[in-house]
């Protein structure tokens, strides 16, 4: 979920989004969305669920400020995204990951190469698939 729910959560939001690929979106006028929120419990749960995901992502951004190495930040990012979306596939370009963990594309390319060589991940286009999450977690815990 994205868009203009600043009237609900009182947070100033951005004004547009860009489709990454062919994308289907249910664009609900804000007034109708607010009415749904007032009358339907499941819509409240939907909003809370989205806000929790956002908080989780922001939490990760704060962790980045924890002065961990870029390698550790990258491995942590993969694990966290996998946890958030309950999937072993991470949909993100190298550029997006770089913005998320505050490092360069070159560093991420190097890490992807290293992790691919030891069969922990594989990368296809803008998708990274985690092949062995347990080993990835162990690696994260052992990185500085």
């Amino acid at each position, binding site marked *: 979920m994205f*868009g*203009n729910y600043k009237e609900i959560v009182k947070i100033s939001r*951005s004004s*547009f*989004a*860009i489709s*990454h*690929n062919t994308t289907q979106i249910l664009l609900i006028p804000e007034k109708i969305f607010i009415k749904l929120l007032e009358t339907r419990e499941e819509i409240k749960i939907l909003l809370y669920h989205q806000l929790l995901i956002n908080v989780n992502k922001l939490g990760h951004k704060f962790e980045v400020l924890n002065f961990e190495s870029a390698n550790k930040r990258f491995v942590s990012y993969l694990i966290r995204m996998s946890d958030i979306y309950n999937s072993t596939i991470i949909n993100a370009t190298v550029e997006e990951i770089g913005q998320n963990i505050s490092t360069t594309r070159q560093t991420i390319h190097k890490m992807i190469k290293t992790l691919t060589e030891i069969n922990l991940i594989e990368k296809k286009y803008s998708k990274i698939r985690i092949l062995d999450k347990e080993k990835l977690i162990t690696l994260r815990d052992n990185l500085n």
Partner: protein
Amino acid sequence: MTTTEELIKKTVDNLVKEFPSFLKTFTKNQYIFYDFNDFHYVGIVIKGRVIEKLISKHGEEKTYLNYR
């Protein structure tokens, strides 16, 4: 799938059935405006992925959050 995920999926499925005219398809790299003039929208991604952008005071575009 956990109970919460099932509930979220069911809620979104019901919203699509209830408001079929609100369902829009965007091709790659299309701009989706949701906050301009008197029009304000909440977008629920059904299929695909969007990247929300933050515009700084200086007009600079920054990726904010990704949604699937």
